[in-house]
């Protein structure tokens, strides 16, 4: 049931994102950068907040008037900062919510990834506490509403005897010191939020906390335009002797209060707790996800660190040698952090099919996708192809669905991530003429399910990242096509085009080399 929900959700996202891919391009689609966009909006809120804080007066009358001064008298600077502060907070709720939903439907919350998901749940509470606290500081009608409702909500808990709501009984009951407390909380809670944001990204290598520059520029411009068109304003000043009647609430944060009014304080507590608990426990709901971690083979590991540099999830560390060999380091895998994507296998220099078949055990390998089996599968399957335009299609578990591919002259092989393929295999396929061309396919560019697969593979092909595809391998015979799960139809067109190109190229001939020249020289003289 959960599976069905997830697949339908994924379908919806993929089709919505297809629209954005046409507009933004698939390397800059904002849906592929939701987490880093949330971070970015946080920074806008933090910086604008610093400015506002300098002007805020912590007293019952001063709170409202100091903010009015910024909004009205200093509309061009303070007012803009106030609007940025408010709208970026709203934007953060949107991006955080979408980010959470997306990771859920893309199945990136279970198994080893539980840590990232689990640490995200407290972030929701902290974001809401920060936002609600912020609106409270203004001490307008909306803040009064928040004060009364929040204290009634908190009073439902039998923890503290004296009702907090007594502090907001009437004008006489409130003191200036309360505003000092609120201002302190509104700095402290967002700092806690930043701390938990940092914890949230701990198990990722090179965590992306900044979205691509074009998205940063676009977002901040959008925020500025909104701030100028519709400046954030306060409502009428608070007066605890009069009840609040109608309020223009910020539904992104404050929807909880009308909800509480419609139901009750107790219901809101139960709902919030139950939903949080349910979300927090999701990674452990059946079916459990557990793929075997990669395994290091010390006989073939000399501590070159290529796997360590390529692992997207910080699951590999370099440790002092334990087998007595003269090498300084060896790679070590933390099973509890290994996603089993195989990018490390693609990086290992000993993961090459030119080795003796029985010896093809690389320094690091996926136990359920042994390289020996991959080599055999490639040889066996391509042997069924005929003609001059034989294409080996290599893809991954999350990109284009290869099971449905049935084209003449094409065989398809799947890997956990297409970047788990060592470039040496491409050399092998072309130079041993198992196929005339290789088409590498996977997720959308910018949306590799394992974060860096597409980037690393493209860099390896371009000779910018080790292990590089040898220059002698003709690049016209290796093409990439990043289209995601819904790229099935486009893939067919791409394969046809590739096959036409291969027909023009003709069969593979090895490059001219000294070896060949010397050989012909020897033969002639002999």
């Amino acid at each position: 049931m959960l599976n069905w929900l997830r697949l339908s959700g994924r379908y919806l996202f993929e089709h919505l994102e297809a629209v954005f891919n046409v507009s933004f391009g698939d390397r800059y689609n904002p849906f592929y950068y939701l987490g880093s966009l949330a971070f970015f909006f946080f920074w806008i809120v933090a910086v604008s907040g610093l400015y506002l804080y300098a002007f805020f007066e912590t007293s019952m009358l001063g709170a409202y008037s100091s903010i009015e001064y910024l909004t009205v008298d200093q509309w061009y600077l303070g007012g803009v900062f106030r609007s940025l502060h408010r709208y970026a907070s709203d934007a953060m709720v949107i991006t955080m919510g979408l980010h959470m939903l997306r990771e859920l439907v893309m199945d990136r919350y279970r198994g080893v990834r539980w840590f990232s998901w689990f640490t995200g749940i407290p972030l929701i509470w902290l974001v809401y506490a920060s936002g609600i606290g912020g609106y409270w500081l203004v001490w307008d009608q909306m803040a009064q509403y928040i004060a009364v409702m929040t204290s009634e909500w908190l009073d439902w808990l039998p923890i503290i005897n004296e009702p907090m709501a007594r502090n907001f009984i009437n004008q006489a009951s409130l003191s200036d010191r309360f505003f000092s407390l609120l201002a302190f909380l509104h700095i402290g809670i967002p700092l806690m939020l930043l701390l938990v944001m940092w914890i949230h990204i701990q198990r990722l290598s090179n965590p992306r906390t900044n979205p691509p520059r074009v998205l940063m520029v676009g977002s901040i411009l959008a925020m500025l335009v909104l701030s100028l068109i519709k400046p954030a304003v306060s409502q009428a000043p608070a007066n605890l002797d009069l009840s609040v009647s109608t309020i223009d609430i910020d539904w992104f944060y404050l929807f909880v209060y009308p909800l509480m009014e419609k139901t009750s304080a107790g219901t809101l507590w139960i709902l919030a707790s139950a939903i949080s608990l349910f979300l927090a426990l999701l990674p452990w709901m059946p079916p459990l996800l557990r793929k075997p971690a990669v395994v290091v083979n010390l006989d073939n590991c000399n501590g070159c660190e290529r796997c360590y540099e390529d692992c997207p999830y910080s699951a590999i560390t370099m440790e002092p040698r334990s087998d007595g060999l003269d090498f300084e380091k060896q790679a070590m895998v933390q099973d509890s952090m290994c996603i089993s994507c195989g990018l490390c296998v693609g990086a290992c220099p000993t993961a090459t099919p030119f080795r003796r078949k029985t010896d093809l055990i690389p320094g690091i390998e996926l136990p359920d996708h042994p390289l020996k089996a991959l080599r055999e599968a490639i040889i066996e399957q391509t042997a069924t192809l005929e003609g001059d335009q034989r294409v080996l299609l290599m893809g991954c578990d999350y990109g284009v669905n290869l099971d449905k591919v049935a084209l003449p002259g094409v065989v398809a092989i799947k890997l956990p991530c297409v970047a788990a393929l060592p470039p040496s295999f491409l050399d092998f396929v072309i130079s041993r003429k198992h196929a005339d061309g290789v088409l590498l396919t996977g997720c959308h560019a910018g949306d590799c399910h394992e974060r860096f697969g597409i980037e690393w593979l493209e860099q390896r092909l371009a000779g910018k990242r080790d292990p590089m595809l040898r220059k002698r391998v003709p690049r016209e015979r290796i093409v990439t096509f990043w289209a995601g799960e819904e790229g099935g139809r486009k893939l067919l067109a791409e394969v046809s085009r590739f096959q036409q190109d291969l027909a023009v190229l003709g069969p593979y001939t090895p490059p001219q080399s000294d070896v060949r020249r010397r050989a012909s020289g020897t033969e002639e003289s002999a």
Partner: protein
Amino acid sequence: MIQLLRYTSQLLLYGAFIVTIGYASTAPTHTHIGDNKAVIKLTLKHAGQRLEACRQLSEEEQARLAPNMRVKEVCPRERSPVKLELLIDGELMYSATLTPGGLSRDGNSNTYQRFVVPAGKHALLARLNDDVHVKGFNYEKEQDITLSPLQIFVIDFRTDSDGFIFN
């Protein structure tokens, strides 16, 4: 041409984003209570009477105590629960027995209740009992009030002001 289309579509999508934020950050307006309504808040922070009277210690009892802990009088801590009732226009709106706070039940009895009523004239009757040894209610106050729209009327209690305070 394609570039122009792409930029335009991006502009539209950003536009949709900020329109969503711009709208939902202040609309639709929420009505908390109608402007023909008023609010009565009933609150209490009061310690009931002690359950047992204080008693004097005899000479032997005092001698048994360590010299630095010798006191003449001992007062048992537990306090009486407070029974509180509020009637608005003759209808019993609230009736509760409030246990004193604290592990030894020697703290204040607390409550906070908010009632939304139509603005205008109302007859209020508040009464409480803070001593189990007394039958019925030992504090009571009755008053007719006229509430203007959105007015908040507070009913509190203080022993030094001789009972209920109607504000």
